[in-house]
């Protein structure tokens, strides 16, 4: 038996349906107890590599595989699934889609049940694992009602109950708020310390390095670009591709001697009549349920670019659904352009306020992008000429012209996201509301996306300011608020607990932590440099001041 629990040798793989190699000539080996971080932009082959390691390739996915993956000296391709599942445990990206049982106990017991173990053995394994992860209190709960963080832990428990020696975690943090993400990371670290070999695929590198991985494997186009210790990272990895801690970026920008770009400050507009007003709004979903909103007061003015922060389940989505009239306040009023939403239909409000839901998969349905964009304007009864004009313009704005006759369901995630924005743009509303616009996208993609929306160009006006009077987005990523917003709302305890310029709202770190908002290195650096800069800036721009 070899000394290494995992050896990958000259591995290449090509999917049957694709012309190009998804993974090309990858070799590495892992020691027992090592924690390897795998990073790289979307589509670079991380998941494919993971599938080669856990044996789904070549079993479930067809294609051409070359090279070897040895688990404890034996090739995965030759092992039985039952055997292999006890060596490698895999945690997939979205726990919501990976949990297969309705209640927590059954979920954790699922793997051992499939192995046909005796009942007592299964019960004792489940108990041990729950104890190990401190989730005994979840024992009899329904999996559907768990919070994102709890779901993640239950999925992890289900995997640990198979007692694997290698853990393979494919973007496990994607759906978690920052505080829960750090709890999860701490658990991964402690598992490695107990002697498990851990492979963590994650493009939130900044978060992941807080648990000091032993090495990092950085991939580009299916190949290994860098494999080695973390400390050389700033020099090896392009900071525009992967999110690195702000001080590293600054260091790198300085070393490269790139002239830092400082975009002009977006001009303040006169505060005129508010577009949307919340007046003492209370709301609960049902009389049997507790209040979600209590005493919410809020005005949205033309020129606002608002970031809404707050923990999972605080009621952020509930809040913005009031603005579009999908929900009506239990008490109090919401006014859109001076009219009570109770007296308006959602379709009427949609002329003023365009709402982009978090996941594009919840709204894309049409056979072509063109028809998809037609949907809103047609519903609103626009004239045909106006419809075609709107479509052409909005497609140009999101840079999707060449996809007009393409089926939206066949596009990549990032393109789908832009299609949904275009669909709302075509409705020519005055306010744009986006629920977690960057969730599920990698760093390079989402900076490109946010730059396209919020970045100011030559004329000094961004896509948003040119098309919309005001914008509001909900996010868990505090750096987005730091970089792009001119106003930040912190939502917690059923109402708005802080409202103001980013520099004012985000300066009190203790206050933020109280609402489960984790300060980031970018925020920290910005706060340190604030006396010199006078406002928050993206990491690259800070290089000129540090």
């Amino acid at each position, binding site marked *: 038996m070899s000394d290494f629990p995992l050896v990958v040798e000259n591995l290449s793989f090509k*999917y*049957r*349906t694709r012309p190009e190699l998804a993974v090309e000539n990858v070799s590495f080996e892992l020691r027992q107890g090592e924690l390897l971080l795998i990073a790289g932009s979307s589509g670079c082959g991380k998941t494919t590599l993971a599938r080669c390691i856990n044996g789904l390739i070549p079993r*479930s*996915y*067809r294609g051409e595989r070359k090279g070897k993956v040895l688990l404890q000296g034996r090739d995965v391709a030759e092992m039985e699934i039952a055997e292999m599942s006890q060596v490698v445990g895999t945690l997939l990206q979205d726990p919501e889609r990976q949990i297969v049982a309705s209640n927590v106990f059954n979920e954790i017991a699922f793997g051992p049940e499939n192995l046909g173990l005796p009942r007592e053995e299964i019960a004792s394994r489940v108990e041990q694992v729950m104890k190990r992860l401190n989730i005994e209190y979840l024992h009899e709960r329904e999996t559907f009602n768990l919070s994102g963080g709890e779901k993640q832990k239950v999925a992890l428990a289900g995997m640990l109950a198979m007692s694997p020696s290698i853990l393979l975690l494919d973007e496990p943090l994607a759906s978690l708020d920052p505080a829960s993400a750090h709890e999860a990371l701490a658990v991964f670290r402690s598992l490695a310390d107990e002697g498990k070999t851990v492979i963590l695929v994650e493009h939130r590198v900044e978060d992941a390095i807080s648990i000091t991985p032993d090495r990092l494997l950085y991939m580009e186009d299916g190949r290994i670009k860098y494999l080695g210790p973390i400390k050389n990272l700033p020099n090896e990895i392009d900071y525009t591709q992967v999110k690195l801690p702000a001080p590293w970026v600054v260091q790198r920008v300085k070393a490269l001697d790139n002239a830092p770009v400082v975009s002009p400050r977006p001009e303040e507009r006169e505060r005129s009549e508010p577009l949307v007003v919340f007046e003492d709004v209370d709301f609960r979903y049902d009389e049997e349920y507790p209040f979600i909103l209590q005493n919410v007061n809020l005005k949205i003015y033309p020129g606002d670019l608002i970031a809404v922060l707050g923990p999972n389940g605080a009621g952020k989505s509930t809040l913005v659904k009031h603005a579009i009239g999908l929900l009506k306040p239990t008490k109090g009023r919401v006014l859109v352009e001076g009219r009570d939403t109770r007296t308006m239909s959602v379709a009427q409000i949609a002329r003023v306020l365009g709402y982009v839901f978090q996941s594009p998969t919840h709204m894309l*349905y049409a*056979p072509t992008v063109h028809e998809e964009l037609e949907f809103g304007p047609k519903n609103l009864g626009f004239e045909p000429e106006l419809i075609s004009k709107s479509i052409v313009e909005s497609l140009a704005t999101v840079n999707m012209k060449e996809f007009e006759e393409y*089926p*939206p*369901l*066949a*596009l*990549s995630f990032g393109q789908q996201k832009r299609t949904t924005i275009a669909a709302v743009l075509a409705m020519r509303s005055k306010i744009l509301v986006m629920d977690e616009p960057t969730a599920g996208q990698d760093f390079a993609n989402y900076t490109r996306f946010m730059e396209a929306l919020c970045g100011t160009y030559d004329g000094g006006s961004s896509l948003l300011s040119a098309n919309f009077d005001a914008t509001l987005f909900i996010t868990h990523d505090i750096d987005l608020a730091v970089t792009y917003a001119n106003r930040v709302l912190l939502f917690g305890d059923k109402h708005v607990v802080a409202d103001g310029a980013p520099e004012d709202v985000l300066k009190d770190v203790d206050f933020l932590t109280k609402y489960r908002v984790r300060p980031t290195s970018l925020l920290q650096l910005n706060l340190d440099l604030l006396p010199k800069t006078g406002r928050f800036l993206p990491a690259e721009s800070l290089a000129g001041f540090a």
Partner: protein
Amino acid sequence: MNDKSTWEFGTRQVVYGAIGAALYGVFSWATNIFPLPAAGNVTFRPAVAVLIFFASAYGPWVGLLAGFIGNTLGDALSGWGFYWHWSLGNGLMGLVAGLVMASIKDFRARGDIMKAVGYGVAGIAVGMLFASLTEMFMGGIDLNTALFGYFTPAFLGNTVVTVILLPVLMIAFAAVASRRGR
């Protein structure tokens, strides 16, 4: 695993059977909330198109399970109780419709869509006929009532829905499948 062996019954069929059932249940129940116009006593159950779609995409076992379990779940959610013969009828509907799976090559192709609609309508006929005829023993109705009170409206309603919605679903599915093949 793209071997289209019609009668295979593994993890894939379990998963899509369950997913089809859950969707069929949810949509059957939801269309009670958004009622469509009923012409005579023909009620439209758009969910049927979803069941036929699952059957043609994933085969007869999936159709059977999704139809049987899904109908049971839909009735249970609506609080109507359990009518085993209607659940079985829905299962047969899915089973027959699923026989088309192996011969569909391209979900966008006109010919393949027509084939799927054809099997779907055959499935509706078989399934609804079974349920209507068993209703004679269950409810004590006579053949006329079974044919004209149950079968005809159910057959017509389901067929109309399938003819309209199944092609749309298949075309959408072709786009999704092109992004992620196995």
